[in-house]
């Protein structure tokens, strides 16, 4: 009898356990259904403008960068979107490369020699904090940008005096000729992005807030630093027809695959792309815009041969240029998106020479090395970054075939890469340098004052003389002198340029105006509109 009772209780226990298990499974299924349903609703809400139910007046942008600051005088140029939305520049750099009036209605150099520059300012403009835009504020801005130590400061070192001639006229006097001020005062060169005078008096605020005269203003309540930045229309904007959205959100998406997924699913409408994902973006039916922008290759920093004596001989530096198969490397690394180059500027650009300097000729390279007394080759220490490690390796393979051995050190951390480039312990470094007018390149790349990218202070009297003359020349004279400078750099083989690699922008079909051109390889979110 006891045995029968025990069996019954076991059966009841098993049934009870099964019933509980069934209840648990049902509960789990219910939770999954609720989450998937909620997810579907969320997915619809998070969709891009017009793509999946999102109000058409919201633009969602994916940015690969966390801004180092929101202060236009301190932010890196690669992160210009964060200030483009809130700050109008003095001069607008249009997609066709032309400079157009914005907060300045006209500008010109006075007299000869590019030493005095005058701007006429737009009247009746107010900043988002309500303060007026005047010549005094422009003077304050230029002095602030010059002294703040940001990227644009290097372009303003020759500014000796800024005078507010009247309420709408500013005159800048330079200590040395500088023909590039119109470009320096555009949105992408940053120094033209005008900040309210009140904010400059308290610049700490600019790290987390905006105070510009642009179409939008940062909504601090809807912004989470390093995650997303929300902009709302600036109610006091002078040019309301340029406000295309009720809200613009920049979402930080550092991982390129994550950014592409977010674009495909409609969470964002525009992202920066890169050549590794360009094919996938095109396959997904997204709009892919690209334009060549960055010259990449080797910079032979030790041109005097202090670390590696063979580099003092121009025949050796030329041999390295002959030994590199630019077409093969460019095709292999960047496919259809890369452009082989023997010069540091692009065809059609300021300073370009319409001739070939170095065809691929390893035999000629070997001959030049033998003539210089290095028939057995030599070793060369090269430092590269995450962005240039692949091209450094490809160049190393080609140079190895003529006996020149590259000893590569790679830093994924850009700070360490820049430290080693400027440190003077590497005879060469792999370079990726965004193209710009020759006059702006000088103090950053090839003049003795270029502390970062000319670490051994290489100098060439011809280049320096032409550079000075070009600074004071008119446009025609400057074009000829710029061509000579670029040709001299190629003939003296200070660099081993290999490819121009493009910048990419991907956008959904809900947005138009996302353009990149060789004349302006940077797109500005204030130009983007609902399609």
């Amino acid at each position, binding site marked *: 009898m006891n045995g029968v009772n025990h069996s019954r*209780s076991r059966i009841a226990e098993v049934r009870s356990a099964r019933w509980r298990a069934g209840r648990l499974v049902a509960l789990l299924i219910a939770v999954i259904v609720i*989450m998937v349903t909620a997810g*579907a609703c*969320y997915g619809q809400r998070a969709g891009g403008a017009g793509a999946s139910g999102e109000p058409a007046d919201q633009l969602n942008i994916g940015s690969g960068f966390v801004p*180092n600051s929101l202060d236009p005088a301190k932010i890196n140029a690669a992160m210009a979107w964060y200030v483009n939305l809130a700050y109008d520049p003095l001069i607008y750099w249009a997609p066709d490369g032309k400079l157009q009036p914005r907060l300045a209605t006209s500008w010109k150099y006075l007299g000869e020699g590019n030493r005095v520059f005058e701007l006429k300012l737009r009247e009746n403009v107010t900043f988002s904090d309500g303060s007026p835009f005047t010549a005094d504020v422009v003077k304050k801005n230029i002095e602030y940008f010059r002294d703040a130590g940001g990227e644009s400061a290097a372009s303003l070192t020759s500014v000796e005096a800024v005078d507010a001639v009247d309420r709408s006229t500013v005159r800048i006097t330079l200590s040395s000729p500088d023909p590039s001020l119109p470009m320096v005062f555009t949105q992408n060169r940053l120094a033209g992005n005008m900040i309210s005078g009140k904010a400059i008096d308290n610049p700490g605020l600019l790290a987390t807030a905006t105070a510009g005269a642009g179409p939008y203003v940062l909504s601090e309540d809807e912004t989470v630093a390093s995650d997303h930045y929300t902009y709302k229309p600036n109610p006091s904007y002078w040019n309301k027809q340029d406000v295309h959205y009720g809200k613009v959100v920049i979402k930080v998406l550092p991982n390129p695959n994550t950014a592409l997924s*977010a674009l495909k699913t409609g969470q964002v409408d525009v992202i920066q792309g890169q050549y590794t994902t360009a094919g996938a973006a095109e396959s997904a039916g997204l709009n892919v815009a690209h334009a060549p922008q960055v010259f990449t290759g080797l910079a032979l920093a030790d041109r005097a041969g202090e670390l590696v004596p063979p580099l003092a001989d121009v025949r050796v530096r030329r041999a390295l240029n002959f030994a590199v198969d630019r077409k093969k490397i460019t095709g292999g690394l960047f496919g259809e998106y890369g452009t082989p180059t023997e010069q540091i500027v692009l065809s059609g650009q300021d300073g370009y020479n319409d001739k070939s300097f170095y065809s691929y000729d390893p035999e000629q390279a070997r001959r030049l090395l033998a003539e210089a007394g290095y028939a057995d080759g030599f070793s060369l220490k090269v430092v590269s970054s995450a962005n240039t490690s692949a091209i450094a390796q490809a160049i190393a393979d080609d140079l190895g075939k003529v006996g020149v051995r590259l000893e590569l050190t790679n830093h994924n951390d850009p700070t360490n890469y820049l430290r080693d480039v400027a440190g003077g312990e590497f005879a060469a470094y792999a370079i990726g340098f965004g193209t710009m007018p020759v006059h702006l390149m000088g103090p950053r790349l090839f003049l003795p004052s270029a502390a970062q990218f000319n670490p051994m202070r290489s100098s060439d009297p011809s280049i320096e003389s032409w550079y000075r003359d070009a600074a004071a020349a008119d446009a025609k004279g400057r074009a000829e002198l710029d061509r000579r400078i670029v040709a001299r750099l190629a003939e003296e083989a200070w660099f081993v340029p290999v490819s121009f690699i493009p910048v990419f922008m991907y956008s959904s079909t809900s947005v138009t105006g996302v353009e990149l051109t060789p004349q302006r390889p940077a797109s500005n979110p204030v130009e983007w509109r609902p399609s």
Partner: protein
Amino acid sequence: MVRLIIRRILISIPLVVVVTLLTFLLQSLAPGDTARAILGESYTPEAHAQLSHELGLDRPMLVQYWDWLTHAFRGDLGVSPISGIDVAPEIANRLSVTLSLTVGTAILAVVIGVGLGVLSAVRRGRLGRAVDVISLVGFALPNFWLALVLVTVFAVAIPVLPATGYMPLADSPGGWLVSLVLPVATLATSAVAVMAKQTRDAMLDVLSRGFVHSLRANGVSETSIIFRHGLRNAAIPVVTVLGLLFVNLASGSVLVEAVFAMPGLGGLAVQASTQHDLPTVQGVALVFTLIVVVVNLVVDLAYGWLNPKVRVR
């Protein structure tokens, strides 16, 4: 209990000092510095010297550390020299993301992992082997890869969940829950495997002991034997593993945060380290140390609840 808590808090003070001092020294000894990171391509030796002076980086290291420590004890973690943002609120914002991920994953690991472990220990046979296989697979799958697969399937191919992003709980509880599904599922895969394996082994050990046979002989129901006696005795090693798992999740979710573009503490730590943003690195190290202290305290309290003998010690 109160004495235990007070003792733990007192012990944690030198721990915090040692960890943050080590972090400070290691970060200071790493190549590069804050002024170099801020200047970037605008570097000149003169600008570097001036900025280093303005930021106080030319002072002796221990003076800089003491300055940070005294401010930190007053609740002031300083301002990031890179972004100009206050470190304390920045960390608070990101802590909520990391805790959402960590707590969510820990809950799933306990519910599913312990459940699977108990089930396989009780049923054994095929189910037991299946749990072993699932644990192995869970261990073997790289989080980063799994996250990309989940995004491709559940956000791109079948668009039912968001591919990226985090919705704060205060903004939308539903959105918050949904934004956590894929990242938590990614992290939980290995966490569930760990918990299932640990629970199964502990339960098998306990169920084979003599007192369990005595309980059965005395007619105690199987449910009571499993849950009241077996699981409670097996829980101590499981709680230990859970504590370690929680700490690992809090500090190791950086890849998952990156894939899902979630603004968590891990991402902040990586970003601050690469930018040589010392106040932020120090703040994150402080918070991670406090998380370890709190988790260890909770684990100790759980020991006491599960095994009264521990309370006496």
